[in-house]
């Protein structure tokens, strides 16, 4: 086995595991989010902020954002690997990863700003 191929196999296994770990984490996190959001369907702005400010909500929300956009980046990477073969592949991967990172950071920033400032 060539060294290049060996490295590809190891990366593939790590990718596979990260996809599963984030998937398992996302089951309770997303169900918590949907249950909470449904419970707050009738809530006004101040009630939604009060809910998001609770330490447990802030923590769950940050964990949700981290797991969600990590899982998204892993999934979209497979799709780019499968369908983008030209010189566009590397730029596509870079843009996709930066996009996922930006979304996770922006979401976390918003949640922390609400938690600290109200």
């Amino acid at each position, binding site marked *: 086995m060539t060294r290049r191929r060996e490295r590809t196999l190891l990366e593939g296994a790590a990718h596979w595991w990260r996809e*599963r770990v984030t*998937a*398992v984490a996302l*089951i309770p996190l*997303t169900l918590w989010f*949907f249950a909470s*959001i*449904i*419970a*707050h*369907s*009738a809530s006004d*702005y101040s009630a*939604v*902020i009060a809910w*998001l400010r609770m330490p447990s909500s802030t923590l769950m*929300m940050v964990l949700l*954002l981290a797991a*969600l*956009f990590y899982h*998204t980046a892993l*999934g*979209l990477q497979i*799709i780019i690997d499968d369908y983008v073969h030209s010189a566009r592949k590397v730029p596509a991967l870079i843009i996709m990863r930066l996009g996922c990172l930006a*979304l996770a950071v*922006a*979401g976390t*920033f*918003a*949640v922390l*700003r*609400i938690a600290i400032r109200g």
Partner: protein
Amino acid sequence: MRGSMEEKYGPTSPNIQIYRPQLTSVLSIANRISGVVASVGGVALVLWLLAAAAGPDTYAFALWLLSSLLGQIGLLIFMFAFFLHLCGGIRHLIWDAGYGFALSTIYASGWVVVAASVVLTGAAWIAGLFAAS
């Protein structure tokens, strides 16, 4: 075959357009498509959080967008894509654990995924309507 196309790039997939669509193949590609659609829902989630952090006026605008016809259709599509991806993902995790590979079980679990996604989306939507009223 050193230096061949396969050695360099790995094996190529069959041309799927020559096969008749089956529950198994349709759910396979549906898991991928629903993942992409749910990602767009993730963008909406972040925009909603940013609107909430920006203040009551921006939040009111975000809620107005979400309650518009286009917003409601988008929300329904995101929710169905999410539940389809969730149920399909759990099916994959069960396979990863080594269970459910009999052909009859694969078809049964496939229909469970379809039914559960529809029921969960409907239940979440109705629960939201009840909570809002």
